[in-house]
């Protein structure tokens, strides 16, 4: 029971988080970035205990593109056919900025509340 609830809470927390980090990964890239590179960066930088499921990235990228947050271009590759690379759109930058602000304020609020239960651990 507690395990199920914990799982649900973890899933609820990760909704949106994944979108935020993917948008941030695209934003910090100096050039258009392709899906594999985004997945590799997110997996490499994930903290211990958090696994980024790389296979979930591609439908996310398509949804972001459909929402107008990303724009894709085909970039020729020496290793085979052209790759689809992504950049943030103006709307994507605006959403990322708003989302980052929300994330930071939420983090401060949650940490403040959690500070009060340190003694319960």
């Amino acid at each position, binding site marked *: 029971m507690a395990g199920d609830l914990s799982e649900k809470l973890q899933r609820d927390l990760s909704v949106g988080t994944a979108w935020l980090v*993917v948008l941030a990964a695209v934003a910090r890239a100096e050039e258009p970035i392709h899906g594999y590179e985004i997945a590799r960066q997110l997996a490499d930088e994930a903290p211990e205990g958090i696994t980024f499921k790389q296979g979930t990235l591609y439908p996310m990228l398509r949804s972001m593109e459909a929402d107008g947050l990303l724009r894709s271009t085909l970039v020729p590759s020496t290793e085979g056919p052209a790759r689809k690379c992504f950049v943030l759109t103006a709307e994507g930058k605006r959403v990322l900025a708003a989302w980052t602000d929300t994330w930071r304020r939420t983090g401060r609020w949650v940490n403040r509340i959690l500070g009060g239960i340190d003694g319960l651990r």
Partner: protein
Amino acid sequence: MDSVDPIRAYLLRLEAAMAGHDAALVHDAVLDADAHLRAAVRAGASPERAVEEYGTPDEVARAYVEAESGPRGWRDVPAPARASASGTDAGSTPGPTEAAAGAPAPAPAARGLRGIPVIGIWFDIRAWGAIAYFGAVGFALSLAYFVWVISLGSLALGLLPLVIGPPLLVLLLGSARAICLFEGKVVEFFLRVRMPRRVQPVAGTGNGEIGFWARIGCWLRDIRSWMSLGYLLGNFPVALVAFVVIVALASVGVALVLVPIGSLLHMPVIADFDGDMRISMLGQELTPDSEGRVFIPIIPALVVGLVGFAILTGTLWIARGLGVVYGYAVQAIQVARPQPLRTMPAAATSPNDPPVIAPR
């Protein structure tokens, strides 16, 4: 050897996890995974590790289904009960159940006016899209495709014995595939059948290091080139029949529906009747007034209007049905693989070979 290729085994499991879902969605998921895993192997990861980091087939399948069943979903499939659009998962959190990822979700309980039996079709945007497609856009495009294929095809066949013939044939096949991709977008817009987002390159041309004539050979061997050509040739007569049927039925239906409206507005069906003929309608004789105008009484006019409404309703259903058949025919061409995953020889899926699809 086949059974030990981890990437191919993973793709088969992913395909199985997505069984029952839209073929174009499965196509995208499998091709994304194929491209990603082979890119990972080229970057130095072992196939086993690449597969492990990609996520279990159930997890990946669920991500695709959930992304598709959001507000932009093309099909009326609600998100599974344990919805999560996340790509992160904390440590030991187990993957989703097979039921959540695999089986098609039930239809929503309430679909509004579209859920009304029979006449709900009037509120179905896909039926109106099909009317627009078969009644105008689809027919015009099919004619243009047909003219292009016949013109270029005749030229290519005529010049086939010369050195310029085979390249012209490849140009014909290439243009047929490009046109089919465009047709897919048109069909997706009007008929609301999802097309793959991912385009497969011609089989065998993936590594970009083959010669000109070898490339032409790849184009000629790829079954999808010929399927596209067959579609463009066969599409015209079918689109012509569909156009005639839809336009004829819709015209008759609209004309009959307008009869009671005309009757209510006291508009004569005949403005100047001076013949000796007797006109009767539903057993009721219509007599001209002193100025020779003939009017239809409201009761027979309502009956005629109802017949017109029934014809229009039937037309919408026919268009919708044709739209489904058409849409999935175009989809089938676009998701076709040169060779099914299950029967693909091991060499074609070994990590060092060119991918089945383009890495993106």
